[in-house]
C-alpha cells in the first residue's frame, strides 16, 4: 500500500495515460467528476437548507426519549466510547501475520484519530448545538482516544488477558446499556415506544445481532447433523426464511403473531420487529457458519473425538473456533446488511432512523427537504457500515491460525 509513494509522476502516467484511448478516457472522467463535484458542493453550500437537520438533531438521535432521562444515554455513549477506544487499542496490539507492530500510533491510526478530532470539532458546531453539549462531544472523543492510548500502551504487557477481556467487555456493556436505556434496577422505566431514531435502529440491530449469532450456529450444526429430524427441521427453517422477503416476514410478525400467542402474551410492536429480525438474520448466519463448518476438514472432528472429547467438547473446542474464524467475513457482512435492514421498520410504521426522517418531513415546515435529510442518513449509514467492515477486516487479519503465522 502507500498511496503517497505510488503517485510518483511515472506511475501516475502509467495509471492514467497508458495509451491514447486511456488518456482520452481519463480526461473525460476527470471532466465529468469535476462537474459533478462542483455541482454537489455548490448545492450543499448555496442551495441546501440544513436547518431541518440542525433543528431535529435530537429527534434523529434518540426520538422522543424523555429529556430528563437523557443523561442515561450520555453515560451509555461515554461507556461505548471508552470501550471502543480500548478495543481499538487491543486490536492494534495484536500481532499481524505479515507485519510487525508499528509502534503505538501507526500511520492509519494517526489518520483515524485526526479525522475523529476534526469530526468532533466540526459536527457539533455545524449542528448548532450549545457550547455545553459541544463540550460533551469533545470530552467523549477525548475519552475514546484516551482508551485507545491506554490499551495500546498497556495491553501488550497484559498479553492474553487483554485480548480475552475485550470479547467479554461488549456483552457486559450491552446488558448495562439495555438497563440504562430501558430502566429498571432503580432507574425510571422508559418504554420501548419512547425510543426512536438512531437509538431505536441501534437497539434493534444489536439485539438481533447478539441473539441471532448463537441461533445461527445451532441451526448450522443442526443442518449438518446426522440426525434426520434435526437436519430437516433446520433445512426447512433456513430455506423458508431465506425464500421470503424480509418485509413480508415483518408484516407477518405485526399481523399474525398476535393470533399465534394467547392474548396479552404477544410482545409489543417494537419487540415483535426485533424478534423477527433475529429469526431472519439467524437463517442467513446459519448459512455463513455452515460454509465455515464445511471448510474445516473432517479429520479435525475425528481427531478430537479419538482424543476422548465428547461431541459438544469437540465441537466447541476444536471445530467451531476454526469454522467461525473462516466464517467471520461473511458473518460481519451479514451484520452489516442487518443494520441496513432495520430501515424496513419504517415501512411497518416504527420510528427508526428512516421512520423518524419521514415523520420530520411530513412537518409542513420541512416539506420538500428530501435531499438534505436522505443524504445525511446515507452518510450516517455509510460511516457505520464502513466502520464495521474495516473492523472486521482488521480482526480477520489478526485471527489467522497460528500454523500460518510467524
Amino acid at each position, binding site marked *: 500500500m502507500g498511496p503517497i509513494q505510488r503517485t510518483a509522476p511515472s506511475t501516475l502516467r502509467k*495509471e*492514467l495515460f*497508458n*495509451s491514447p484511448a*486511456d488518456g482520452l*478516457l*481519463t480526461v473525460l*472522467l*476527470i471532466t465529468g467528476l469535476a462537474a459533478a463535484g462542483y455541482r454537489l458542493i455548490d448545492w450543499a453550500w448555496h442551495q441546501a437548507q440544513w436547518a431541518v437537520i440542525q433543528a431535529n438533531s435530537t429527534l434523529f438521535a434518540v426520538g422522543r426519549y424523555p429529556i430528563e432521562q437523557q443523561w442515561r444515554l450520555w453515560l451509555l455513549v461515554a461507556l461505548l466510547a471508552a470501550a471502543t477506544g480500548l478495543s481499538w487499542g487491543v486490536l492494534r496490539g495484536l500481532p499481524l501475520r505479515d507485519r510487525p507492530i508499528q509502534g503505538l500510533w501507526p500511520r492509519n491510526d494517526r489518520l483515524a484519530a485526526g479525522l475523529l478530532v476534526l469530526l468532533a470539532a466540526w459536527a457539533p458546531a455545524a449542528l448548532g448545538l450549545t457550547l455545553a453539549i459541544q463540550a460533551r462531544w469533545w470530552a467523549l472523543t477525548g475519552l475514546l482516544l484516551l482508551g485507545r492510548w491506554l490499551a495500546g500502551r498497556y495491553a501488550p504487557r497484559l498479553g492474553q488477558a487483554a485480548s480475552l477481556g475485550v470479547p467479554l467487555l461488549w456483552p457486559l456493556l450491552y446488558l448495562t446499556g439495555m438497563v440504562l436505556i430501558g430502566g429498571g434496577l432503580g432507574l425510571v422505566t422508559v418504554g420501548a415506544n419512547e425510543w426512536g431514531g438512531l437509538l431505536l435502529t441501534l437497539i434493534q440491530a444489536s439485539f438481533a445481532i447478539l441473539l441471532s449469532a448463537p441461533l445461527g450456529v445451532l441451526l448450522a450444526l443442526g443442518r449438518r447433523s*446426522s*440426525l*434426520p*429430524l*434435526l437436519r430437516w*427441521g433446520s433445512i426447512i427453517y433456513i430455506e423458508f426464511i431465506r*425464500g*421470503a*422477503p*424480509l*418485509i*413480508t416476514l415483518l*408484516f*407477518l410478525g405485526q*399481523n*399474525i403473531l*398476535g*393470533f*399465534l*400467542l*394467547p*392474548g396479552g402474551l404477544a410482545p409489543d410492536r417494537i419487540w415483535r420487529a426485533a424478534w423477527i429480525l433475529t429469526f431472519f438474520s439467524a437463517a442467513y448466519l446459519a448459512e455463513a457458519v455452515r460454509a465455515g463448518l464445511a471448510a474445516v476438514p473432517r479429520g479435525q472432528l475425528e481427531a478430537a473425538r479419538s482424543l476422548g472429547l465428547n461431541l459438544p467438547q469437540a465441537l466447541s473446542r476444536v471445530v467451531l473456533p476454526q469454522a467461525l474464524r473462516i466464517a467471520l467475513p461473511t458473518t460481519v457482512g451479514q451484520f*452489516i446488511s442487518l443494520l*441496513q*435492514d432495520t*430501515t*424496513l421498520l*419504517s*415501512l411497518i410504521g416504527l420510528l427508526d432512523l*428512516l421512520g423518524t426522517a*419521514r415523520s420530520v418531513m411530513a412537518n409542513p415546515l420541512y416539506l420538500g427537504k*428530501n*435531499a438534505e435529510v*436522505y*443524504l445525511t*442518513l*446515507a452518510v450516517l*449509514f*455509510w460511516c457505520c*457500515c*464502513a466502520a464495521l*467492515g474495516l473492523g472486521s477486516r482488521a480482526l480477520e487479519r489478526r485471527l489467522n491460525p497460528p500454523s500460518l503465522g510467524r
Partner: protein
Amino acid sequence: MAGRLSASPPWWQNRRLLPWLVQGSVGLGILVVIAFLLGNLVRNLSAAGLLLSWRWLGQPASFDIAESLLPFDASEPYWRGLLAGLVNTLRVVGLGLVGATLLGTLVGSASFSSNGLLKRLARIYVEVIRNIPLLLQLVFWYFVVFLALPNGAAAIQLPGIVLAKSGLFLPGFEAGLHWTGPSLVDGVWQAPLRFTPEFGALLTGLVVYTGAFIAEVVRGGIASVPKGQWEAATSLGFGPLLSLRRIILPQALRVIVPGLNTQYISLAKNSSLAVACGYTDLYSVAETSLNQTGRAIEVIVILLAAYLAIDLVISLVMNGLNRLVQIQER
C-alpha cells in the same frame, strides 16, 4: 476393571439409543410448540370470525391500481388485483435482472481496466452503494431524483427520449406501424411507451444496488482466472476485449453463475420494497387487501407462496445455466 469394560454401557451412553432419544425429544418439543401455536391461532381466529376461507378473493376489490399491465379497476375481484400486482412485480424484476446484469458486468470488468482512475471509480461505486440501505436509496431516487425532474417543455429531451417529472417517454409503434416519438400535447408529454416515475425510481434503485453486488461477483469470477490465461491470449495476438470475451469470461462464468443466482433472488425479494416509492407491486396490493379484509393468514400464505415460486423459477433457470457453463469433459 476388565469386567467393567466388557459390560454394556449405561443407557444414556448407548450409541444406538441416544440419537433416537435426542430426535424423539426434539420432535416432541416441536410438535408441542406447533400444537400450542395452532391451538391459539384457531381459537383467536374463530373469536375474530376470520377462520380460514378463500371466498373473499372473489369479492370486488374496491381499490384501484395506478399502473398495471393487466387492465384492472376497482370493481374487479381481489384475485385479479393480486394477479395484477404479481405481473407488476414480474415486470420490474425482469427488467431489473437485465439492467443489473449489464451494469454489474460493466463495472466488474472496469475494475480490471488499464486506466487507474476507472478502476478506482468502479471500486468507489461498489463501496458506496453496498454500505447504504437499499430502502434509503429507493426513497432517494424517488423523492430526490425523479420527483425533482422538470415538467413540460423544460423536461430533459434527448433524440426520441424524454425524461420528465411525469415519467420516462420512449418512442414505439403506434396505430399499426407508425414509429412515433414523444410529443408535447397541451403541456403534457405523450408517447407510445411510458414509464411512471414510481416504476423508474424502483427500477433504477434496484439496478444500481444489485449492480454493485453483481460487479463484485463478476470481479471475483474474473480474478479467479489465472493471470497466465491473459498473457497467453495476448501473446496469441488477442486484444483486451477479445481475450475477455473469448478466453476469460467463459472460464470466469463457472464462478460467476452461482453468485449471480444469489443476487438475482435477492433482487426479486428486494422488489417488495416497491411500496416505498409508490409502485404497486404484489406486496403493496397484498397489504391493501389485508387492511380491507383483515384476512391476515390467507394474504401471508399467498405472498410467501408467490415469492417462493419466483425464487424457485430463478434458481431452476440459473442451475440449468450453471450446468451449461461448467467444463464439458469427455
